[in-house]
């Protein structure tokens, strides 16, 4: 088992691109918060640069991107931007409507997991906890 740190996992829940359907991101934010994590929640329509900056400032372990309308196609750009800023330890998960073909592309780009409609609460919470712990231990020391 991964070493459990005393500080709660820090997760950024956000939406990039053009769509504003946020029922899913709000529910996920509530789930993770209820599970004891520190959740940073934003409005929809974030720019990739803004997400990277926020992730850095808030020192998050996991970024959750909610996508209902093809905005997940921008996630590979987010992955590159995180790497460029030396934040490759941060794990990224995507939830929402992601076709199979795109899921493969996202995983190749470095996304840790894609959650589809019907994913259960415990499944999401335990995955995010696991990724957060892994990210925390992989975080470069100052």
């Amino acid at each position, binding site marked *: 088992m991964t070493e459990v740190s005393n500080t709660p996992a820090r997760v950024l829940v956000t939406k990039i691109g*053009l*769509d504003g359907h946020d029922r899913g991101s*709000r*529910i996920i934010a509530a789930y993770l918060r209820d599970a004891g994590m520190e959740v940073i929640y*934003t409005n929809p329509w974030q720019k990739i640069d803004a997400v990277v900056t926020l992730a850095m400032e808030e020192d998050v372990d996991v970024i959750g991107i909610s996508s209902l309308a*093809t905005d997940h*196609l921008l996630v590979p*750009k987010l992955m590159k931007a995180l790497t460029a800023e030396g934040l490759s330890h941060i794990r990224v998960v995507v939830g929402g409507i992601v076709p*199979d073909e795109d899921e493969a592309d996202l995983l190749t780009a470095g996304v840790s997991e894609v959650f589809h409609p*019907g994913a259960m609460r415990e499944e999401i919470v335990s995955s995010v906890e696991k990724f957060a712990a892994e990210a925390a231990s992989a975080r470069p020391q100052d």
Partner: protein
Amino acid sequence: MNKIDKATALETNAADWQQNYDKMIGQDKVIKNRSGIEVQPLYWPQVDADGSYDEKLGFPGADPMTRGIYPTMHRGRTWSQRQLIGLGRPADFNERIKSILKSGASALSIIPCNSVYRGIDCDEVEPEILGTCGTILNTVEDMDISLKDIPIGELSIGLNDPNPFLMLAQMLIVAENRGIPWTKITGTSNQSDYISHFVANHMFYRLSLPGARRVQMDTITYLAEHVPNWNALSIVGQHMQQAGATPAQAMGLTLSTAIQYAHDCQARGMDPDKFLERFTFFFDISISFFEEVAKFRAGRRIWNNLVTERFGVTNPRAKRFKFHGQTSGLDLTRQQPLNNIARVTAQAMAGILGGLQSMHTDGYDEVLSTPSEDSAKIAISTQNILKHEAHLCDVVDPLGGSYYVESLTDAMEEEILKVIAQIDDQGGMYKAVESGFVQEMIGASALEYQDQIDNGEQIIVGVNAYQEEEDASARPVLKRPPQSHMEAQIERLKEVKAARDPAVLAKGLQDLRNAAQSEDVNVFEAELNAVRAGATQGEIIAVLREELGFGQPLVVA
């Protein structure tokens, strides 16, 4: 009234209904079922000893409208099949809409690209996500190509056109260029309800609340005079229910929104007996079958009584609760996706038996991707099967009089009235969304429902019960617009922009700015002039945002 009077009232009202029915139906056909039994257009009780039938149900097309807003309902004219279509380039949309019209759709709807919803032109968007969810409509040319060979004066048109109504402005200029008088244009601005967007679907939230309110009122005022058959308002319960409101909450919040808009119209000196004729509604139809039927029946009754009591309406046309229904994508599952066809069928039945005026049925693959052409055709066939094979249209309000349905309709009415009272206490819908009261109500309900699924209280076939190995081959193959198409679209926009007369364009935009700054100039009229001057939707919205404020969603923790 004593007993005899009540009995006479039933007879008189039935005779009135029959007369109106005969007048409206024209040549009624004899309908016999497979056993040879003749099916009457309407069934009602033999006696109404305590007057409760008259008070609560009445006859279709008469107070309190519980059983329907027309005497004939679907037996006379079935609902409009209004499938939402939006894809890629305007030419792609045009091709698809022609094929959809051929397969039986009787009205058309346009969904714009998400970039349009955000109020930006295609040359400002990352090309990966351009045109993947709707049609790019930045210019009059885009609208003209989208509607090529479509007789826009003869067909009811639905525009998913959020405030500030720029798709409508573009379409009116297309009509003008084609020599079609605006008095012939019919249809609805389906996504113009800025309050619902502010609450529950930020996708369309482009102007500040007060800015959107101003533009809405200017548009309604302008259209009442110049485009009299256009419904500027479709008051949307769908967003709220999709965001998590229960069916009763969604109905209550929608009616509260309508009350708010009616007050705004009155404040402009408009007459409720006139402007309420043009109010229409748009609801989600979930798979909770009887609950949805009761929601619609209760909503009709409440609206009928409410406009009479609160706004003194006497014109029967202004009491009609006209609504469009869309089957709920939230009920669809990624697991065993073909099951979604059965789900959509049950949802559509609830909408039809609830007495809707137009409907969109979802493609079964909506939960996997933007719907494919094949799944969109199945969705239309579903409506045709229910109409012609299941004979759902032979009888008006066939569930009326059922102990369960009537009791549930009463109970839903009570719940809905509670929500309306809560919003009244908040000072009306505008204030209740400004403070976040409504958003909190909806958020709590969304979590509660999700908990019921997570703990298995609500069974979802293939998700938390009856799971099976996935057969990925049942999933439709995804088609996205080729990147080259989008690049060409961006190039075309640049050409169109370059070909404009800069002086004319500058004047159009300056006049728009002046209109927005002034209290006395109609902003929608100025939008039309800006469109005539060649301004794109992105340019027009940019000006309005500067002058009227850019909306930010309210985040409720």
